[in-house]
């Protein structure tokens, strides 16, 4: 409790991180209450109302705040519903990366030697293929879909987590409190997960937050390439690539989904930055 208060106090010092946190909270509530927040269903088409510019444009109408797309769908509503997808993608990909990366990292660092060498070879191989490329390869195996994109991004993230976990476990493993626990007869599992792991939480939390941001960004990128979410899913990246042909005639269709991606990613990054300040000041300097 005391720790939490101290944590909040320190976190509050980083003002942009607070803004990031607020935006994230807003985003999560938007995603949860999307059907209430959005004035229209994201898929409802109205061919009569195609390509209406945003409200503040001379030709805009107040019933479509951000205008409509080429199917006459309300852009604002689509962006709102898009938040659900982005957050889901972030959560699931981070979940995948984290769970695998965590176990790999701990096992590698704790057992060391050949085990470490073997796991880190796998990690190196994965890292030797640039992330987006690896994601594309995975998507091309699974076939383009939102699910594939999430899986791909999840897999691509594993080595990063594995490395971070490994290096912090390595640092912790040598500390005397671990030796103390071992002398007192702790089992390997207990040493790994009860004794050491909680002390590696900070970099992991920070990385998960940042990783969330990059997962959202990567998913949008894959969808933009047509390898992720497929239309008419209101995914922001897919919306962007769908509206590419309207860059001159209906630029708002490109502008706002992009802004949505940017703000989401930025707010998670700001939050991650703030967490880093508080939880892991050393990491920030690395």
């Amino acid at each position, binding site marked *: 409790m005391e720790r939490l208060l101290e944590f909040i106090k320190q976190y509050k010092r980083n003002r942009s991180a607070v803004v990031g946190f607020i935006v994230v909270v807003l985003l999560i509530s938007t995603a949860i209450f999307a059907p209430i927040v959005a004035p229209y269903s994201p898929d409802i*088409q109205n*061919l009569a109302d195609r*390509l209406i510019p945003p409200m503040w444009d001379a030709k805009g109408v107040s019933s479509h705040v951000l205008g409509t797309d*080429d*199917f006459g769908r309300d852009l604002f509503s689509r962006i709102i519903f898009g938040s659900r997808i982005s957050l889901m993608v972030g959560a699931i990909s981070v979940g995948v990366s984290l769970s695998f990366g965590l176990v790999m990292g701990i096992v590698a660092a704790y057992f060391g030697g050949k085990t470490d060498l073997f796991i880190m070879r796998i990690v190196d191989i994965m890292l030797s293929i640039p992330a987006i490329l690896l994601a594309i390869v995975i998507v091309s195996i699974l076939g383009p879909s939102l699910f594939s994109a999430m899986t791909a991004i999840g897999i691509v993230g594993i080595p990063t987590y594995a490395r971070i976990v490994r290096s912090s476990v390595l640092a912790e493993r040598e500390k005397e409190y671990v030796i103390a626990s071992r002398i007192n007869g702790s089992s390997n599992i207990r040493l790994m997960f009860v004794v050491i792991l909680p002390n590696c939480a900070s970099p992991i939390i920070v990385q998960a937050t940042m990783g969330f941001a990059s997962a959202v960004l990567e998913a949008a990128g894959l969808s933009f390439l047509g390898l992720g979410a497929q239309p008419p899913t209101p995914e922001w990246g897919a919306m962007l690539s769908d509206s*590419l*042909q*309207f*860059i*001159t*005639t*209906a630029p708002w269709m490109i502008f706002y989904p992009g802004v949505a991606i940017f703000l989401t990613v930025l707010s998670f990054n700001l939050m991650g930055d703030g967490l880093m300040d508080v939880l892991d000041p050393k990491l920030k300097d690395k």
Partner: protein
Amino acid sequence: PKYGGVLVFGRSGDSVALDPAHVTDGESFYGSTQVYNNLVQFKNGTTVMEPGLATSWDVAKDGLSYVFHLRKGVYFHPTKYYKKRNEFTADDVVFSLKRQFDKTNPYNKIGGSFKYWGAMNMDKIVKDVIKLDKYTVKITLKKPEAPFLSNMAMDFASILSKTYAMDLLKKGKADRLSRYPVGTGPFVLVKWIKDDKMIFSANENYWEGKPYIKKLILKVVPNSSVRAAELKVGSIHVMDFPNPEEIAGLQANPAIKLVKQEGLNVGYLALNEIKVPAFRDVRVRRAINYAINKKAIVKAIYAGFGKPAYAPIPPTMWSYNANIKKFKYNPAKAKELLKEAGYPKLSFELWAMPVSRPYMPNARKVAEAMQADLAKVGVTVKIVSYDWGTYLDKGEHFLDDSCILGWTGDNGDPDNFLNVLLSSNAAKIPASNVAGWKNKDFDALIAKAKVTTDIKERTKLYMKAQEIFADQVPWVTIANSLVVEPIRKSVMNFKLDPMGKRRFNKVWFDK
């Protein structure tokens, strides 16, 4: 007309390769057409046949052999990468065609499968290609086939230089054939920068006459908005595939004009008789035809770039019958017919394809419009879609109730539509006649036309067949789309080709 100038054609994608016998995509043909000629060709902007590298041809009475008399004094152009200037002879014709089916031809194994040869069933048609003398070639067939001549005008039948091919083979560089073309056509390939541009120079000695423009550049600009922007600033002169939304803006530009051409295509809703018993009743089919407001659909979804279709072949095709029965929008009549047939409440699945095609810019939207129209006459439809491969596959196996599909002509022959899409032969799994419609009279007409070589006779037969179609309506024909090409006003005499080629040898600049 004036000589000179560089013309830049802005297109949406790059060619895959430049050996037209191996590729199937339009963008590849854009490139190869500039370089190669065929024995026969379509008159610029039409589906009418005219002499190409063959000045004339004789057809045997039984329709089983064609003798082509070749044009003399035509030379393959020397290029940067192949300096020899070889004369065009019968050997080249024999080589170009036989490599596609003669297993002993050294090029039969090179470059992968001959996709179009297979797709057009040429193995079942062509028996042999024989050189009679230096300037005469005889092609013998296994069975009479009226569309054969049209097939010879298709890209896959382009004539390549045998000598060049053999020289490459000797050097062990047979691969280069698809990348460094040497042809007899109006333009000579100078440079091909993948995914960027192809640069051609005019063939000074072109047998049809030297092209007016000096240089032709096919530039790849995938994004249509970007292409439009480039057209506006004049960094391209002819723009391929404009986005319908953009056209109004382009038209308003004083430096730009639009060239239009009705596409050789048709989009339709096939009513699957095999799966849905109700569709076996002609009254139901007619009712559905009455119930759908084609005009409204064409206006809203084709953005005006299409025309309501009534026949199974497009109006630009020879033998098109303009006088067949046309189902005008009439919901009352539809209701009546349905009642009469005993289906006042009908419901079925309506499949909408997931991709956009020239004949169908947005199938889902069309489906939604149809859904609304049909609801008004008491028919409930559920819209279903699968990914493209599955969609086609299921359709071929008659697993749909009804599905939206379409067809673009390959060779300007009505047989390519009527036989492929509506004959009983084509209703066998995997079917291209996805409606599963079988009509003996229709079949008889089509079969006869296929073995008749006289074009007037064939025209009559096809007109008749269209009448049967319009009476029996196995499809709801939806539209023939209009191909629009915005070009700079300074570009003169640019004609669109119904088969989708882009030809520039008659184009000139007016400044």
